[in-house]
């Protein structure tokens, strides 16, 4: 298993940017339905990474011994990550496609977190 097929793809040609210059890109983006952030932001945030990081924060702070760190896939219903704890309990992390992104983390059916993902990373980045 690995995380390589997850979303977060910012394929450059798909929005018609192609070889055009910046001015045309701006105009094209205004006229098409593609996401500006997806087309232009080379290093923008990713909802999938947010779910992965926040979920892993929850697992580590809860003392879960991880056998396989959750691998994430993004679909129409949001982000779903699956992994396994040492001992075999399945780990499942989900992130809604809504704003704010709501993260649910379960291990072996036990819910460790159900709330905004951003709150988790904000809390982890500040003194406890």
């Amino acid at each position, binding site marked *: 298993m690995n995380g390589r097929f997850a979303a977060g*793809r910012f*394929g450059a040609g798909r929005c018609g940017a*192609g070889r055009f210059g910046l001015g045309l890109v701006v105009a094209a983006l205004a006229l098409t339905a593609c996401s500006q952030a997806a087309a232009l932001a080379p*290093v923008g945030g990713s909802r999938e990474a947010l779910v992965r990081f926040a979920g892993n924060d929850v697992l580590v702070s809860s003392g879960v011994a*991880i056998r396989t760190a959750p691998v994430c896939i993004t679909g129409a219903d949001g982000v779903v990550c699956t992994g396994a704890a040492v001992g075999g309990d399945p780990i499942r992390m989900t992130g809604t496609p809504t704003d704010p992104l709501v993260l649910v983390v379960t291990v072996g059916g036990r819910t460790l977190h159900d709330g905004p993902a951003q709150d988790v990373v904000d809390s982890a980045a500040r003194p406890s």
Partner: protein
Amino acid sequence: MPGLSRRAFLATVGGLAAALQLDPMLVGAALAQAPVPSDAPTTLQRTILQGPVVQGRYRSLTAGPGEPHLPRIDVLGREPGPDRATARRSLFYLGHLSDMHVIDAQSPGRIEPMIVQDHSAWASAFHPQDPLTVHVAGAMAAAVSAARTSAVTGAPLDATVVTGDSADMHSGLELRWYIDVLDGVPVTANSGSPTVYEGLQAWPEVTWAYRPGDPGGGEFGDYGFPRLPDLLAAAIGSPVASPGLPTPWYAVYGNHDTLLLGTFDVSSQFRSMAVGDRKATTWETVAGKALTGYAATGSPVQRFVDAVDTAFGTAPGFRTVTADARRRTFEQRDFMTAHFETTPLPGPVGHGFTRANLDSGQTWWSADPAPHVRMFGLDTCNQVAGPDGAVPDDQFRWLRGELERAGAEQKLCIVASHHNSLTLENRAVRPGGDTQALHGAEEFVDLLLDHPQVVVWLNGHTHLNQILAHTRGTTGFWEVTTASCIDFPQQQQVVELVDNRDGTLSVFTTVLDHAAPVAGGGSSWLDLAATSRELAANDWIENPVFRRGSPLDRNTELLLPAPFDLSTITDAQLEAQRGTATARMLANDARSPR
């Protein structure tokens, strides 16, 4: 396995002293010391966290507790041996830098006003800390230098690799600054006027930018960004005295080293503007006149009128600045050439690129930074458009052949590229241009999995700490993505390959904060780097705290099965390798000030 015999030790000392023109007594004393794990400052001892709100929503930074190495067994698939910590020996110790984004903030060859069009979409066009990137790069070199001895094994640092996006806006001056900083050459982060800061952040009408002299009137002021009236003058006022890297360093291309803003063609119009004396202050000017789109959309008459306006300084949306020819945009091959204009130490001249690269135009390389380690420096950048990348077929086939050869030679393999496995799907091609296949993440990861001697893939691009496991059956490798020097947390890494002498290998990753103090406020170059970090931590549009990654992405011990019988690498060979690395650092430290 015994280490060097007395005779071999003396021969090693003599050889290194002669080759590096060092005092044999000095070399002998250094090599005679037993390796002791270092307690030099890293995030093992201390982290940097967001502190309390200072004003509005603006937060200071504060020191947090250190984070120990967290074992990860995704690839190994079983509990690691409990006694490995007492048995292990270092095989290779490497610095990993990425996404330094050195910026000439006063250059007309920038497109900062685009954030007004859409701040989120164009966030990388302007950061409040843009004038301080040279200071951060110097502070990061200082952090790597401080971590020159492993905190795990006491081994000396063997090499450093830089995985791209070193120059932000395709500027020859940015390219020069980045190389000089890593070489330990003092850099004054100024261009244009020698005495006056001529950039957007000094101009009162540019209310959309963070203007440290008077932050009010725009969204940065509303957020609570501080008033720092001396910041811009201090940024250009004195040189950044970077100590440079202590080891040989290697470099690969990033998308910012290939395309404008890492995304767009560099037009002839933009090239002219970069070395000219007009700097755009509005996004309409940038989008409509400064770049290729204008030439494609305006009528010939209108283009002529606008050209006259621009030439005589009457066009709206421009400010006159001091032109500087050093700001010329570089061509693709210039990136390699610049790496030959370097100091002999820490070297190597070319930094991975060789004369063969210059002759052929091939932008990827392989090198043996230690006798049993082979590193592959790839160019995954799309030459046409778009920030993300792919692996061209000629490079893909080259790598497959090289990996087969390295496997036969029992080399531990490290792959270094700019893009990571989540950003390797850009197959944009120029109509009528190169038609070779571009390989994406699935094929590339499969290629690496075909060769179990690949133990780690180092990359960057997404400005965050992230570690992914790639497995197939009972083998696999680790993918380590490091953060950047531009966005918070402004962190990089050191990576060490360790033989546990039980049939397993560990890859230790240790995150480095740069060497600036936690709190900003002073005016030394290190203090300015601290200010940069604090500004970056409040650049809300980048979601800065998220880029730290989780504990599984920072200080880790990444276990995997040994790809071959590691006892074939003798203790004597490793001792000789340590001696070489130690003596090289002594020579680097002893060189004359540059």
